């Protein structure tokens, strides 16, 4: 009999764990992304952005007269966990979701939000298919997609750098390989340049000396790299050590202060694409100042995109007058909103109009926008 009692206790515990918090009358903003583990630096700034926005809006009376409640869920950037977190957010009654961060996790989770009719806005998922495939009508983002970046990078390489031979490398990852494949496609379309090398490097490998030698042998004058800053800083450092003059051109994943910190002098002169410089937008400066005041350090990756997404989502609910899916969708697509990434609204596919990329160069240890 004792055993059955035990079972009963277990049951009760489970039930109490499971029963959702008593639903108060609030607007629920879900936030999902990697908040633990090695990818946390990409997810936490957006989460903090959402907290700042919500705090401010609640202090000003909330949305539609209701307080905004944050539901924060960690997906570790893993697709299988993302589906669980998505389900959790749906069962907790999220009205809109800010997230996810990684494209893979976003793709996995979107189906669930789609069925539940919840608009989702990512500050960072740049995979072109997310908007262009038409599979995810409920998806929006405050960042431009990879193919735009690749197009810009390729045009820059051809027109400004006068590239004749280009080597294209990637880190075999979702983001990097996607970018590199687009770059290769656009390069192949142009008759002025030749792709002399297209290869994946192994992230985390001890060194890249063979591949660097290979670039040198191919006599490439520009190297386009798709990937993140750790590999990029290894590559530029080794290229410098081999006394190579090949120009280094990369993507937004590299446009991170860590790249300059880690690669140091070797980073000088490197080019990368990144979201347009927004420091002239007053809201951007204000948001950054807000973050600094709250946490005492510079905001990290995807902070302003996250801030913008939170503003855009809540603004759409305000404008729509309800959390109804159709109304919010309409508001997102028709109403302009002022955000740190500019005055934006969203097109029918979910990409933000008015968000774009520029090319940057590292000069004197800083990213300088090239006009």
């Amino acid at each position, binding site marked *: 009999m004792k055993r059955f009692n035990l079972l009963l206790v277990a049951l009760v515990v489970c039930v109490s764990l499971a029963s959702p918090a008593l639903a108060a009358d609030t607007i629920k903003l879900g936030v999902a992304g990697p908040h633990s583990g090695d990818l946390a630096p990409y997810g936490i700034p957006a989460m903090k952005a959402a907290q700042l926005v919500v705090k401010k809006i609640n202090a000003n009376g909330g949305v539609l007269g209701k307080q905004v409640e944050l539901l924060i869920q960690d997906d570790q950037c893993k697709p299988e966990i993302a589906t669980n977190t998505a389900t959790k957010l*749906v069962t907790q009654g999220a009205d809109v979701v800010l997230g996810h961060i990684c494209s893979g996790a976003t793709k996995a989770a979107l189906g669930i939000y789609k069925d539940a009719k919840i608009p989702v806005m990512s500050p960072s998922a740049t995979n072109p298919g997310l908007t262009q495939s038409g599979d995810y009508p409920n998806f929006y983002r405050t960042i431009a997609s990879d193919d735009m970046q690749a197009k810009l990078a390729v045009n820059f390489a051809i027109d400004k750098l006068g590239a004749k031979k280009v080597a294209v490398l990637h880190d075999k990852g979702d983001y990097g390989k996607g970018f590199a494949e687009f770059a290769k496609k656009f390069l192949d379309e142009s008759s002025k340049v030749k792709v002399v090398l297209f290869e994946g490097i192994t992230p985390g490998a001890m060194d890249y000396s063979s591949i660097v030698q290979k670039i040198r042998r191919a006599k490439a004058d520009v190297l386009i790299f798709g990937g993140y800053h750790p590999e990029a800083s290894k590559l530029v450092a080794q290229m410098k050590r081999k006394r190579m003059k090949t120009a280094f051109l990369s993507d937004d994943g590299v446009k991170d202060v860590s790249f300059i910190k880690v690669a140091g002098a070797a980073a000088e002169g490197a080019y990368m694409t990144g979201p347009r410089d927004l420091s002239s937008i007053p809201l951007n400066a204000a948001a950054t100042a807000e973050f600094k005041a709250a946490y005492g350090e510079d905001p990290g990756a995807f902070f302003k995109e996250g801030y913008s997404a939170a503003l855009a989502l809540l603004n759409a609910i305000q404008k729509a007058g309800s959390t109804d899916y159709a109304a919010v969708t309409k508001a997102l697509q028709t109403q302009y909103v002022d955000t740190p990434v500019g005055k934006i609204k969203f097109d029918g596919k979910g990409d933000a109009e008015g968000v774009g990329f520029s090319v940057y160069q590292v000069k004197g240890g800083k990213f300088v926008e090239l006009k």
Partner: protein
Amino acid sequence: MKNIKQSLAVSLWFIFLTFPLMVVKVNTSDQLVQWRWMNILWIGLATFVLSFVWRYALARKEARQMAAQSGQDEQDKPSRIQALLEDQSLRYKAMIALLIFALAFPWVFDTYQSTIMISALIYVVLGLGLNITVGLAGLLDLGYVAFFAVGAYSYALLNHHFGLGFWTILPVGGILSCLFGVILGFPILRLRGDYLAIVTLGFGMIIKVVLENWSDFSFGPSGIANIDKPGLFGLKMDIAASTTYIYYIMIGLVVLTIIVTARLKNSRIGRAWIALREDEIACVAMGIDMARTKLSAYALGAFWAGMVGVMFAAKTTFINPASFTFMESAIILSIVVLGGMGSILGVILGAMILILLPEYLRAFSEYRMIIFGAAMVVMMIFRPQGIISNVRQKYEFKGLKEKSENV
């Protein structure tokens, strides 16, 4: 007094050990050093207390071992849990209660709980599958996740290209995985123990690299999205309904796995596997074909991973190579070892604990992995046979019973 001195020494040693990493934090770009002196105090206190616990636990373990050595009977005496398990009538009652609980689950709890439970059940099947290879046949496999990937990709690709449905692919995925197991098994038949471990680890990594690079075949690192969920006569289901549906399929799959592995364990084939694990040379000398036995263990272990891989792809509706890392293999292996090698119930418990606990410990999400690692070590030291150790089937005979009762 001696204990205190010893613990003091231990905590001093750990303060020394953790000093650079716990106390100092440099910011080279801003030329700043952050000294976190408070951490010394915490480390010192924690290790001081822990060293007492540690010593006490070790002493208890040793005492138990001594007792076991001096009197053989002591060792044979099954633990209280095991005694409970052997009680047939109770076992049936418990099984029925558990089954009712499992079947009622999606109606009692919300959809989120069901999704979590599906994840856990997926790992139960993975654990039981690996249990055949590692627990029964003793072939250490550090790349088991490769077979999981084969199953997941067979469904994703066949569904994407040919629109084949879940129920068609479920067995196909298993069989493909099985074939893969045999193909990989052949070259490594001759290898023993730790050599096998590194080669299987290599295979796991190779599969991932191939999936990442061979874009024309696998769609590369961006993965495959919009995989169909399992269908039920073309009914359209919302999330809650389809989650419940998948949950029941998973329960079915788990029950099937349990029945099959339990039957195999006490069959001619299962005994051959165990014999192979216990002593390879004696095993072949008793007329057992080693190649065949090893391959069958490999293939069968792979089969379940393939099946559940199909399930995984259908549940997440999106897969990419990033889901099939060494960490997954390590977690599945831990499930088997922590649960108790060879013991079906143990593996089930192991999977539930390792997968569900972190879900409910989200508050500590930052510390999840460090706790996980520490738990593995502590568990191995104080209970190396796992939560539930394997018990062999007992046979009854006319005549024997009376005899043993008289003794």
